[in-house]
């Protein structure tokens, strides 16, 4: 296959694509890793409040070196800051925000997404691995809009968007949209509908890189 890094969107452009779809006034939870980049690309004029499930609404930027507070961290245990107007709360309240449907959007990474919007992102199922789940299952069960930001394929070139997840599920029919380096794909009525193709990527190339059936939307034609 001739698809290499030069095709498609960069990681920052992927984050920018996600940010564009976050509306003004949204309460947003960003997963650990690539999702954290999204905060840097919210279009001007929009105000977004970030929730971190370890107990802070109104999370600000990462702490400047020298000002780190070990008691002010995000879900990835990184030292962060709180914005004016932030609130601290305990874990059960924090997860009530998630499980009670109060968070508008959650952005997560993925090992696999199925064509029906199933998400696998907590375990690769390797026998010797130490299982750890954190808040992933709570987030997909409780947040209405789940955006997945992920490379379209693994480092080995295997598709991450598949007919059926082979890794243990985090949740079933939970993904709203996928933002990959090759395309933006919406899950609509358990079908993968391509909304936008990255520069240089054709629908046919995208389909070759995908382990599930894709559908064209009017926008991508």
């Amino acid at each position, binding site marked *: 296959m001739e698809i290499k890094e030069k095709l498609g969107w960069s990681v920052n452009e992927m984050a920018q694509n996600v940010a564009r779809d976050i509306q003004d006034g949204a309460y947003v939870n960003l997963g650990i890793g690539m999702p954290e980049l999204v905060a840097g690309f919210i279009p001007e004029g929009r105000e977004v409040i970030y929730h*971190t499930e370890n107990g802070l609404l109104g999370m600000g930027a990462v702490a400047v070196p020298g000002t780190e*507070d070990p008691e002010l961290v995000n879900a990835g245990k990184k030292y962060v800051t709180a914005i004016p107007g932030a609130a601290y*709360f305990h*874990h059960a309240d*924090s*997860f009530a925000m998630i499980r009670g449907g109060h968070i508008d959007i959650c952005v997560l990474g993925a090992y696999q997404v199925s064509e029906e919007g199933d998400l696998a992102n907590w375990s690769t199922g390797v026998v010797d691995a130490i299982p750890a789940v954190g808040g992933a299952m709570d987030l997909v069960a409780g947040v209405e809009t789940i955006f997945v930001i992920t490379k379209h394929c693994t480092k080995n070139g295997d598709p991450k968007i598949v007919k059926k997840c082979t890794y243990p599920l985090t949740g079933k029919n939970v993904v709203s949209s996928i933002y990959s380096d090759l395309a933006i794909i919406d899950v609509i009525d358990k079908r993968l509908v391509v909304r936008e193709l990255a520069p240089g990527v054709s629908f046919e190339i995208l389909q070759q890189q995908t382990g599930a059936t894709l559908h064209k939307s009017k926008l991508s034609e």
Partner: protein
Amino acid sequence: MINKIVSNTAEAVADIFDGATIMISGFGEAGSPVELIHALVDQGARNLTVVSNNAGSGHVGLAALIENRQVGKIICSFPRTSISVVFPELYRNGEIELELVPQGTLAERIRAGGSGIPAFYTRTSVNTQLAENKELRSFNNKEYVLEKAIVADFALVKCHEADKYGNLIYNKTARNFGPVMCMAAKTTIVQARKIIEVGEIDPECVVTPGIFVHRVVEISNPADESKLVAEERRYPWK
């Protein structure tokens, strides 16, 4: 007269018995009661069931308790961190049992335990491995899984300030599991950075009301767990 203040950590944890279930506050190092845990290492109670979000880092705090073979089982959402070495080794050797629980379910099971609610239904983990062998039930055409409350014999909790009635306030994201764990244990033992006079905390600002707290010990300069881990320190101190 009510005075929940005890003079030192050894006294605070003296009656923890073999086989006890112990909740330990903290999200990573934030809110982890390192000094109380170290007192429990010294005290030596064994075959403990620990309820905590993580499974410790390096060789101090909760990791030291596990390394000292005092923990038979851990109920936990995320036992893996980049600097977690003790738990993975014991787990792979079959020397410690793990009950893996989604983080929100863990918090809610503890809150339920402290509130007299024996079990509850939640959407979290439906259609996943973690719902296997659990009762499912439909409400409004959606499926939910039954999760049981957790209660404990003891809770070890870190807070910012406390008074002799056991009223507590916390510091930033170090609050995390503290308030719910205080509610769910028969005996809640708290280490506070500062003990202040009754009345100094505005009643509007009390986070954990004293009824949920049984012992308070002042640790004015609590250890910075990440610093100890970076320095490769081990407890007991060599």
